[in-house]
């Protein structure tokens, strides 16, 4: 085993004595490095230059004494052994040196030189034991510190977990999005912030402030006017909303809020700020803003993490509340639809039942049958049966569309021919209206004839129904582009009230519900879906002269994108 060199600092004025000491040590320690010191300057430099395994010093020095050397060494490394090797010492000096931490005392005389290596070895062993003991003590102290830190961290984690659990429990019980954000803001103060501001996205114009909560309630009122509006001084909030990214300002300054020096908000002295977008299902629903001011607290990464956890819970609660209300609205709409559909179905059924009974009563009387009257009853039954069948077909179409089972089978066919046939048939049913067809001789397009007949009949029926005073109805068929065929139906009727225009193609929407004219509110929805299943488009225009113009565009080319 290769020996580490033994580094010895040897302090002695007498070169002869130093040589004797080195010789004695050299016999015992083959790899020996000795730094010889003969004055104060050398001592200071040597002690500063490196560490030594042992210091051997004479007591009487021309420039100092062994006690000073001992103290200088112990001041740097208390564990390093110091051996006094002297001929001039006394018992008193020896005792005083021992009190100052001297490891051994060896008399300097020819017969004692041999004792010096043994003293060094013993001192080194003691020093090693001392060092181990000191290391153990230090480890124990460090362990204690780590334990204390871990306990503090666990307690903090528990507090945070309890805070989030409370937030979760509280927010789950609410289905009002504004109340959710007010509760969140109240919960955040003062545990997480001196101020908490909550903003909610409200269509169509963006953020609305729903809560400003202050740790110091006496302050809240005076700042409410300034913080209560999203218009002012909310730039990091607006940035968080726009970007969907958290804005973290541990050291916030008025310039982050883009404040003028005379802005009242400067006096609030915001110290630290976190603006977190409330995100759920890839949408930003609002912003939660946490501020510190009077507490002087500076936000750290764990604060940010906790705030984001809180914001996530608030966002999910808001999203759930909105989904719940949307679902409720959908159920209400469906309920209304079912009620209207039942009403629509019962009307022909009332006639069917009544006329059937009327006919039977005639036959039951046993007198001569009034043939014209019976024929009229049967004719009405026939008409009402058709009406009922059409309503049922519409309901089935809606069910098929909802489950994706309504298919179309486009073929190349003459749209102009189809439109002329539909118009002729419709004209027979009305004398108040004049139905004009403007179409080329032939206009080939790709469509499912039965389904497109349904669409055009529906549009033409609507045109008749919603122009009760009569008047002209025009159906134009033309090539809109080399690969697009267009069919437009224009009436001069009552039109559609502007507030209903965005919704007329919605399922179950009835634009004329107030007038009890609207049927089941599914005709336009079905028609547009059919056109879109063809890969075509359907839209509506409102000519300045009044009335309504519905446009259907279909593919003219030999290819069609039909999924």
């Amino acid at each position, binding site marked *: 085993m290769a020996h580490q060199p033994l580094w010895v600092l040897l302090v002695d004025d007498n070169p002869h004595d130093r040589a004797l000491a080195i010789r004695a040590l050299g016999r015992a320690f083959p790899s020996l490095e000795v730094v010889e010191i003969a004055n104060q300057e050398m001592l200071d430099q040597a002690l500063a230059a490196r560490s030594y395994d042992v210091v051997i010093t004479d007591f009487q020095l021309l420039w100092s004494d062994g006690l000073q050397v001992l103290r200088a060494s112990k001041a740097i490394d208390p564990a390093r052994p110091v051996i006094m090797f002297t001929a001039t010492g006394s018992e008193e000096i020896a005792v005083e040196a021992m009190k100052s931490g001297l490891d051994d005392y060896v008399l300097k005389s020819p017969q004692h030189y041999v004792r010096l290596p043994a003293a060094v070895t013993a001192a080194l062993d003691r020093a090693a034991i001392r060092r181990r003991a000191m290391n153990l003590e230090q480890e124990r102290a460090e362990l204690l510190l780590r334990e204390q830190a871990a306990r503090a961290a666990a307690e903090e984690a528990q507090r945070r977990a309890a805070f989030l659990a409370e937030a979760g429990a509280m927010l789950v019980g609410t289905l009002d999005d504004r109340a959710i954000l007010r509760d969140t803001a109240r919960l955040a103060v003062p545990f997480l912030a001196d101020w908490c501001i909550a903003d909610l996205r409200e269509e169509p114009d963006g953020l609305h402030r729903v809560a400003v909560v202050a740790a110091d309630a006496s302050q809240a009122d005076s700042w409410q006017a300034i913080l209560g509006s999203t218009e002012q001084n909310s730039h990091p909030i607006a940035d968080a909303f726009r970007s969907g990214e958290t804005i973290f300002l541990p050291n916030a300054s008025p310039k982050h809020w883009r404040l003028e020096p005379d802005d009242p908000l400067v006096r609030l002295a915001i110290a630290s700020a976190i603006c977190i977008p409330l995100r759920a299902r890839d949408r930003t629903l609002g912003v939660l803003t946490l501020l510190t001011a009077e507490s002087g607290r500076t936000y750290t990464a764990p604060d940010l993490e906790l705030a984001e956890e809180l914001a996530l819970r608030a966002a999910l609660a808001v999203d759930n509340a909105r989904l719940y209300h949307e679902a409720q609205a959908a159920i209400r709409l469906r309920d209304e639809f079912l009620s209207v559909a039942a*009403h629509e179905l019962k009307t022909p059924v009332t006639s069917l039942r009544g006329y059937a009974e009327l006919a039977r009563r005639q036959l039951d009387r046993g007198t001569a049958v009034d043939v014209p009257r019976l024929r009229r009853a049967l004719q*009405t039954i026939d008409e009402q049966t058709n009406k009922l069948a059409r309503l049922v077909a519409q309901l089935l179409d809606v069910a098929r569309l909802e489950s994706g089972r309504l298919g179309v089978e486009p073929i190349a066919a003459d749209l102009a021919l189809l439109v002329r046939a539909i118009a002729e048939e419709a004209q027979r049913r009305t004398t108040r209206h004049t139905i004009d067809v403007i179409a080329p001789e032939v206009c080939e397009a790709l469509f499912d004839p039965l389904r497109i007949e349904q669409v055009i009949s529906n549009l033409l029926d609507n045109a008749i129904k919603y122009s009760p005073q009569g008047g002209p109805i025009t159906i134009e068929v033309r090539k809109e582009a080399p690969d697009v065929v267009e069919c437009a139906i224009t009436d001069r009727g009552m039109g559609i009230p502007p507030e209903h225009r965005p919704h007329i193609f919605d399922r179950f929407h009835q634009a004329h519900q107030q007038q*009890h004219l609207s049927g089941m509110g599914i005709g336009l929805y079905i028609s547009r879906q059919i056109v879109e299943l063809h890969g075509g488009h359907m839209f509506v225009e409102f000519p300045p002269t009044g009335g309504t113009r519905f446009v259907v565009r279909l593919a003219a080319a030999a290819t069609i994108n039909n999924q």
Partner: protein
Amino acid sequence: MIAESYRMSTRAPILVVEDDEAIRELITTVLADEGYDLVSAENGAAALDVINVYAPRLILLDMRMPVMDGWGFASAYRQREGQHAPIVVLTAARDAALWAADIKADDFLAKPFALIDLLSLVSKYVKADMAPWSNGDDK
């Protein structure tokens, strides 16, 4: 529109207010067969016009109608001076009873109805062969 079945008579007629042509014709036919005098209208506004000419002794009223619905008619009718005929609501709506209560109707009949139920309900308010003036509805 005044139904043809109304014969010039001193008896006050039954007024049928119904927008569906087939149902309107059904009711007037059945009731005329039983000897009632009838007038009819296709919505509430037309019914008010009819009432200006003929004071009815019973009104059979549909609720969902264009131009003026059953609610509008009932409200306008009750604001008129003089005596008011009983109103029987005829509706296919799920909330027939509710709607009838809504306009303080005397009775209601849910569509689709059996003719016998229509007849028995009408006879509750009007005796077909009785001298109508004894009813006191007409002035």
